[in-house]
């Protein structure tokens, strides 16, 4: 076991899979000579050369679509977006080509491609650079959406994603790249679509994915000091969503708060809340609550930004609400 940063395990996963399969290659803006805008591809150019580690122009529709075409024709591309906020320019290639061509061709064409890069806000970057896209991608049939929160999960899931025959959206975060965790030295894979109960508790269930998981975790630690035991579930994959693990937990705790970096309308929290009311209605002692980014774009001003970004206090307030402690 070694302490590894999030960015290092992303790089390790890509390296291991490129060593294993010659058809795996990576392309994106600054992935090669620059070693990655966030150093998640450090050293790959040196090891694999410019045939397989490829700097692209700033041309998201071009290289996203080129990746899809290469996947149709036998390769396993990893396409890095410097952030998913820039992927929007190439989104037609993801939504209409990557996600639908298998279906429209009656299953004749497979598209094993991973689109990866940071998602959501990374501080005061203004509205265009701060959108969390997990709910939007999960909305679309044909795509798998993975949203890990910790290095161990990220490595095992990214390796599985690269081997998978579906088009995959793999969401990271600029603010997590420095995050460290013990990671095994030996190879391991993690299954897509399996949640992990990261803290067991009996008073309330909290579901939280990606970077926002750490906000929920901090809240859970605070609540424990106050005698409230949180069961904290990290879904890790948004689509397919492991609702069974959540339902089982809610049937035990009878209360749930969903914490999600999306905007509220039609977001992950909305879907999870709906599933809980349908599958565990009689078990609920309080309405399911959610803590999300508000229904407005990201503001720049520090004061407004702090109001916009979900924080542990909001999670604690929501828990107090569903446990009738407030």
């Amino acid at each position: 076991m070694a302490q590894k940063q999030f960015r290092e395990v992303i790089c390790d996963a890509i390296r291991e899979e490129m060593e294993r399969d010659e058809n795996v290659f990576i392309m994106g803006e600054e992935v090669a000579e620059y070693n990655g805008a966030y150093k998640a591809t450090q050293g790959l150019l040196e090891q694999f050369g410019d045939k397989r580690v490829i700097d692209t122009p700033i041309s998201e529709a071009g290289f996203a679509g080129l990746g899809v075409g290469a996947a149709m024709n036998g390769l396993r591309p990893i396409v890095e977006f410097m952030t998913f906020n820039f992927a929007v320019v190439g989104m037609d290639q993801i939504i209409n080509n990557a996600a639908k061509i298998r279906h429209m061709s009656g299953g004749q064409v497979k598209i094993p491609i991973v689109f990866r890069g940071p998602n959501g806000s990374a501080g005061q970057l203004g509205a265009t650079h701060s959108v969390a896209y997990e709910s939007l991608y999960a909305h679309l049939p044909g795509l798998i959406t993975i949203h890990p929160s910790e290095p161990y999960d990220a490595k095992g899931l990214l390796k599985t994603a690269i081997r998978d025959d579906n088009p995959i959206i793999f969401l990271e975060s600029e603010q997590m790249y420095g995050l460290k965790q013990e990671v095994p030295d030996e190879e391991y894979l993690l299954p897509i679509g399996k949640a992990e109960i990261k803290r067991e508790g009996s008073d309330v269930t909290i579901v939280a994915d990606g970077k926002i998981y750490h906000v929920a975790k901090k809240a859970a630690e605070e609540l424990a000091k106050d005698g409230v035991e949180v069961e904290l579930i990290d879904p890790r994959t948004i689509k397919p969503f492991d609702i069974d693990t959540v339902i089982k937990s809610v049937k035990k705790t009878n209360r749930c708060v969903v914490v999600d970096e999306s905007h509220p309308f039609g977001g992950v929290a909305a879907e999870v809340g709906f599933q809980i009311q349908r599958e565990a209605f009689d078990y609920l002692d309080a309405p399911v609550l959610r803590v999300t980014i508000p229904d407005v774009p990201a503001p720049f001003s520090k004061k407004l930004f702090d109001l916009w970004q979900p924080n542990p206090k909001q999670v604690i307030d929501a828990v107090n609400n569903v446990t009738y402690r407030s």
Partner: protein
Amino acid sequence: MSKNNQNITSRTATIIKAHDLPKPTQKTHKGLKISEEELLELYRSMMLQRRFEERCMQMYQKGKFGGFLHLYSGQEAVSTGAAYVLEDDDDFITTYRNHGLGLVKGITPNEAMAELFGKKDGCSKGKGGSMHYFKPEKHFWGGHAIVGAHLPLAAGIAFANKYQENDRLTICFFGDGSIDQGTLNESFNLAQLWKLPVIYVVENNGYSMGTAVQRHSAGELVDRALPYGMKHDVVNGMDVFSVIEKLSEIANEVRKTKEPFFLEIKTYRYRGHSMSDPATYRTKEELQDYKKTDPIERLKAYLLERQIAKETDLQSIFDEVDKIVLESIDFAENNDFPSDEALYQDVYAEDDFPYLT
């Protein structure tokens, strides 16, 4: 405005003729090394595409199937010439106006007709419809219906061929409407920058839906190659010999250099953009003028003039293809619709994907 345009006075307004066709090649079939048997096969192939679509239109008008139907009639020399020149394992990708190219690449008339009817043995299992024909085992990578969105895919298919160091070429067809999309510029830049073995072909049929080419694109279409330093040319698309001659030169060059090429093929579609389009944006005179350059009639005249075939020979080819097309209608009508279970198949790699309900 393009220097080649002529004005034609219509009943209601002065409108612009779609384009002027470049002069066809003067070479004979012998000069192009096309055998007499191959000539008849070219004729047969074009006639099959034409007849297939005439019957499609009838079936559509009878209400046998729904959805959109965009006909290729008039443009058959392009598909036929390209299939003649390129190897079976060269990769083809095109737009939603894909019936002709699908047929020449090996989708059978039965599979093609059944797809229009939405039946289970259609070339896309009834999930794609008229606009989304696929047959990757024959290197036909689809009909794509977002204008310009398949140009990056073609670059990717060519990228994979280069990566795998095989000798396959990719040929990507698109209409003059695609010229104006950003994806054309991004794809041209990547293809030239990374030296990808792809031939981009604009089938300039004069209209982006109902908007004449002079009203939707600045400058000459072929000049879009210039900023990228991409090799380029223009050819008459109403003459199958001209298409064959030009594409042979280009294919040889791209196979040798592994660099992209942009070819503008000037052609014309006889029908509206789709079945709901009465084509009031052009004059009857213009349509009649282009029909005088019809690729099938042109080849027919050539065959008769040189006594390569008799009227009766050509009539039997027509009868044969018409029979094939009628049989495809029978096949499509009798073929089953996809099962209810098929709704949840072919979306993900796994058949047991845990779909939300």
